[in-house]
């Protein structure tokens, strides 16, 4: 075991698989010599050479298309899209091609591509370095969608994603690359070394796709969150002294509906949290899912706490970011009913 931050944990996952499998390589902008703008591929170029930490031109559509071709021809590429905000030039290749290739060819062709991309705000990145487009991809059939909230899960989930024979969009919340973040930007940053999930085994291990994690057991209300918001939610319920069960979804698709239903049927209340914009966000899917599986157990309307339906504003980052206060208010509304 070693104390790793999320960047190092992701790096370790790629290192382990590139070493084990000659078909695995990482491709993208600045991922080779430089080691990635967030340093996620640092050292891979030195260790495995320019062909396996392969720098690519600035053309996300070209990068994903290349990955599909490589995947069809026996390789297992890991694509790094430098920011989730820059994934859209690859949208057609992801939606019309990567996601559907297996289905449209009657199972003849498929491409085991993993697309890693940093998402989320809280870093003063403005509207082009802060978005959380996960809901755009969960809406596409044929893609698995993952977002870890800590280094241990990040490594285990990334190994599962790379080894998965279906395409996986792997979102990395960049606000928590270096340490957990509880939503209070005035506080000094915490390091992953001080967090139990910053303890990461060396070598190979997997965290399965499609399995949520109950990060805080409780009985009065179920909180569904993922990525950075897992930490904000935990801090909020601790601060307010609420006996909440906080579930880190980890994989959005396929969704662990069993764990969710079991929890909400127990608590009778549910609050859904994400940083992405509200309308048609993944939270809407979660609310529908809970409504279908837990309707007769619900004691209060399901609440959503999300980013607003505006582009991520540079000056008003903290008014946009779902705060502990907004989360507590939403939980309290659900607790008002008996």
């Amino acid at each position, binding site marked *: 075991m070693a104390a790793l931050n999320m960047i190092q944990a992701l790096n370790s996952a790629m290192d382990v*698989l590139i*070493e*084990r*499998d*000659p*078909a*695995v390589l990482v491709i993208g*902008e*600045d991922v080779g*010599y*430089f080691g990635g*703008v967030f340093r996620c591929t640092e050292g891979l170029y030195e260790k495995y050479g*320019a*062909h396996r930490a*392969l*720098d*690519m*031109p*600035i*053309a996300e*559509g*070209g990068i994903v298309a290349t990955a599909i071709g490589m995947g069809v021809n026996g390789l*297992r590429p890991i694509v790094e899209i430098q920011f989730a*905000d*820059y994934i*859209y*030039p690859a949208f057609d290749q992801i939606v019309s091609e990567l996601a559907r290739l297996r289905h449209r060819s009657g199972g003849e062709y498929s491409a*085991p591509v993993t697309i890693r991309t940093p998402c989320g705000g809280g870093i*003063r*990145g*403005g*509207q*082009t*370095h802060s978005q959380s487009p996960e809901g755009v991809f969960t809406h596409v059939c044929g893609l698995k969608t993952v977002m870890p909230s800590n280094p241990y899960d990040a490594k285990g989930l990334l190994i599962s994603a790379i*080894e*998965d*024979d*279906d395409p996986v969009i792997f979102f990395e919340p960049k606000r928590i690359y270096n340490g957990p973040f509880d939503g209070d930007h005035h506080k000094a940053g915490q390091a992953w070394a001080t967090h139990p999930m910053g303890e990461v085994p060396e070598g190979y291990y*997997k965290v399965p796709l499609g399995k949520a994690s109950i990060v805080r057991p409780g009985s009065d209300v179920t909180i569904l969150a993922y990525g950075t918001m897992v930490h904000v939610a935990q801090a909020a319920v601790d601060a307010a002294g609420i006996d909440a069960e906080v579930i880190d979804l980890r994989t959005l698709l396929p969704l662990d509906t069993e764990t969710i239903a079991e929890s909400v049927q127990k608590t009778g209340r549910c609050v859904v949290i994400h940083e992405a914009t*509200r*309308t048609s966000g993944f939270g809407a899917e979660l609310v529908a899912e809970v409504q279908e599986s837990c309707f007769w157990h619900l004691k209060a309307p399901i609440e959503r706490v999300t980013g*607003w*339906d*505006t*582009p991520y*504003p*540079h*000056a*008003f980052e903290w*008014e*946009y970011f779902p705060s502990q206060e907004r989360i507590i208010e939403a939980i309290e509304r659900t607790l008002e009913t008996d």
Partner: protein
Amino acid sequence: MTSETNSGLKSQPQWQSRLHVPTASSRPDQPADFTKLDIPPAGAAERPATDVPAEQTRELAYGLVRVLDDDGKALGDWNPQLDADTLRQGLRHMLHVRAYDERMFRMQRQGNLSFYIKCTGEEAVAVAQGMALKSGDMLFPSYRQHGLLFVRGRSVLDMMCHCLSNSRDNIKGRQLPIMYSWKEGNFFSISGNLGTQFSQSVGWAMASAYKGEDHVSSAWVGDGTVAAADVYHALHFAATYRAPALLNVVNNQWAISTPQSFASTGTTFAARAQGFNIPGIRVDGNDFLAVYAVTQWAAERARQGHGPTMIELYSYRVASHSTSDNPDAYRDKTEAERWPLGDPVERLKQHLINLGEWSEEQHQALEAELKDEMTASWKEAVKYGSLEEGPHWPVSAMFEDVFKEMPAHLRKQRQDLGV
């Protein structure tokens, strides 16, 4: 699905890769060597008529238009014959940009700005091109052409207030510093996404032609962005409809850590235009006179109805990509000094001194004046607020301009936030 089906622990072939991967002009442990670059002498390139068919511009696409020689003499057909006042104005704008960059970079390092991008060494691109265009021409810049704003007379105070996202920021605190927008100066809103504005500029130019107007568009991308599909959309549509568009590629050799060799495919960027039946001209981007002349030629050609021109501005990114990277980690520290085409400010200064129209004393006095102006403007700008402390626009401004009229769901969200 599981590791059994594909695990590397199973017997795997040991492949010997035959893939070609381009290399860089330098790395920290590999010194830059530009001695093999083919730099033609100043004054050698021929200046064709503005109605020349594209296929007759091959030499310009693979060559390099240069006017100023190493001694600061202006030579050849491409000399735009500018008067001394215009040259001094150009020098002043370039020094102005440099003074602004230095001040703002320092402010970012002191924690007053979230981000900044300098254009050090590339000042001639935006300044000479901006000066060669007319005020009604529309500018679609990338994030390294803020020199255009100085040419068009934007107030430095307003630029600083934008970078601070404060109460005087004309774009209401919505964008990162340097993502300017200035409609009054026909300067398009900068997108953080690369290349998108290149093809949009062609649409703007097509509308100008559609309306029978004389205005042309001018758009900029860097060498790295030439990989983006939008660049080919721009070339294709501009050629098809003979749009009055200037399509500029600033080849500053680096896209963050990625050398231009990953975008150039071993040839010039100007050569891309040939296949689209568009003239491509490669110009010494650190030569104020050559940049001015080529831009003037392309704008004239566009106004005459002969369609677009692609211009490759051959330059060097002396600065880091942005305040978020340290270039010493990926290139030889001395590479900028070794760059064979020199510094655009020094070259124009030398030319003016040779003409007897400028002196070292005047130069130093101007630098001092501009530095003082930056200090005064910054003091004034922070009176309108800072990023961390405000004042900003009211928080409710976040919900405005998503649509022209605010729909009910956004109004409700605004009320939920209590603003």
